[in-house]
């Protein structure tokens, strides 16, 4: 099984690379959505999967990235892709600021607090905080991204931007996974007392997980804003956070391959069965319950657990 893994990955990458040549615009658009959710779920995975910190307010960091990009672009005419580092930075700093006082809270308390933070951010956006966010209507007129003088407009073009970023993310996150930093997050997840007792500054790594995961979600937000050209608070509701949480858990916490698979299933499948779209969440709820009994480690667990 192990021997076939490189081939499977190469085949998957090759299929993704040529997919737009064979698919219609709508199908490519679905793949773009999957890519964005995969990106967000990978960023949440650092916090939830690797470090074991129950974060159910991830949409807040995503929103802050998207709004930072949109505000900079529409008010100050900063080219949208140039805002990437800054929206990542601001989302990351916001996460550090909110996580700092609460990060020591035990599992499900942290979960509730992050839900609260997510809601406060959404309410703030709806209420046009600082007169910057445009209230319930959001921000429109975000300009198209430009890359080396080439304007990205078609879904096919966005496809390569989004999945290119996904590929880069996987490349970097794999490096993190196999490093001192990645291991420290795993120690936290496995046993916080033992981690601290082995000389690891657990508070620091909890914050670092939040900061890095949020920064990445913020950058995904920029891509989202660039793709949509219009953003509003309803794109960043509690249910977005739930869907992301679900992707990470269904795929297998800590497993990059599992998260990609789960993103395809959770975002892609409902598009295939559009006549049952209303029952989408119902099925998800049921799947979550059944999975926890039958296969709590996820579809493709990180290791043969």
């Amino acid at each position: 099984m192990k021997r076939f893994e490189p081939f499977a990955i190469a085949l998957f990458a090759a299929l993704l690379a040529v997919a737009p040549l064979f698919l219609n615009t709508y199908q490519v658009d679905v793949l773009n959505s999957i890519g964005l959710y995969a990106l967000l779920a990978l960023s949440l995975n650092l916090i939830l999967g690797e470090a074991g910190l129950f974060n159910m307010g991830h949409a807040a960091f995503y929103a802050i990235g998207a709004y930072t990009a949109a505000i900079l672009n529409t008010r100050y005419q900063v080219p949208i892709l140039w805002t990437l580092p800054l929206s990542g930075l601001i989302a990351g700093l916001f996460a550090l600021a909110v996580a700092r006082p609460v990060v020591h809270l035990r599992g499900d308390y942290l979960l509730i607090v992050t839900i609260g933070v997510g809601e406060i951010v959404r309410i703030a956006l709806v209420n046009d905080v600082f007169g910057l966010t445009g209230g319930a209507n959001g921000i429109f007129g975000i300009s198209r991204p430009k890359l080396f003088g080439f304007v990205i407009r078609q879904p096919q073009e966005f496809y390569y931007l989004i999945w290119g970023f996904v590929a880069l993310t996987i490349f970097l996150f794999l490096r993190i996974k196999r490093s001192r930093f990645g291991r420290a997050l795993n120690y936290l997840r496995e046993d916080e007392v033992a981690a601290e007792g082995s000389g690891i500054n657990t508070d620091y790594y909890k914050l670092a997980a939040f900061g890095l995961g949020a920064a990445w979600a913020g950058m995904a937000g920029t891509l989202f804003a660039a793709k949509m050209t219009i953003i509003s608070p309803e794109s960043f509701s509690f249910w977005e956070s739930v869907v992301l949480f679900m992707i990470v858990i269904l795929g297998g916490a800590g497993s990059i391959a599992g998260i990609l698979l789960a993103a395809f299933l959770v975002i892609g499948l409902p598009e295939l069965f559009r006549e049952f779209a209303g029952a989408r969440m119902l099925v998800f709820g049921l799947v979550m319950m059944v999975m926890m009994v039958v296969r709590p480690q996820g579809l493709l667990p990180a290791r043969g657990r």
Partner: protein
Amino acid sequence: MEEFIQQLTNGLAVGGIYALIALGYTMVYGVLKLINFAHGDLFTYGAYLGLTLLTSLALTDRLGFVLGIAVLVLMVMGLAAVLGAILERAAYRPLRESPRLSAVVSALGASIFLQNTLMLIYGARFQVYPDDILPTATLNFFGLYLPLMRVLIVLASVVMMAALYLFIQKTRIGTAIRAAAIDQSAARLMGIDVNRVILLVFLVGPALGGVAGLMVGLYYGQVNFTMGWIYGMKAFTAAILGGIGNIPGAMVGGLLLGVIEAMGAAYISIAWKDAIAFCVLILILIVRPTGLLGERVADKI
């Protein structure tokens, strides 16, 4: 002053509803150390069941307002309790020995499932309680006019809380619940059937939560299939505020949160009303995670 008292009584009415829901969270947390995420949805079921029974059986027409509502309350309590027991059996019992995360995910799954079942049955739009059944009278307290419905809500929630308090403090079964909340294995050794206690908690909590849902329907006149999660979050905040696992704490926390919210909406900003409760939640967890009436417990290493 008039405005202040109107807000205060309104806050107490909403707070009473929060408190009734909070009791369900706090009782389950006390015994299982689990946040029952689906509890808010059982509250919504209470509201919808109440609406369906009220309109289809025409209870108030046949039995008169007081008796009709009383029968309705009992029916909603019974049905919500049955749903609670089914929920416990389906979503939580299989995961009793699993890691926390599994139980949390299952609870969330149950919540999503319940909510969307309701949506598929009733549709996504607001459902309206018939306004011709409800009393619109106002009461005159020394020149202060209070809606009758508001007064009834406050009274009903206080009566129910008092009844629960007596049940927990004075009966054998209540003592068993308290014992299981303190130390499950010790309670088991003392001959308490912990499984029965858990089942009981999942009967009583949802029964109270279901009535709270009915109250919201009667008080505001309209209900929505997603309202359970926002009410649930606020009730959970109330439970934390009072000290999770602590039954009087949930009552105090609920009433307090209702008043804080009403005052915040009136004197700060109505648009930020929902954010106020979440700010209270975060503040209390930072400043005093054991809540107002909770006791500090040392972590075992």
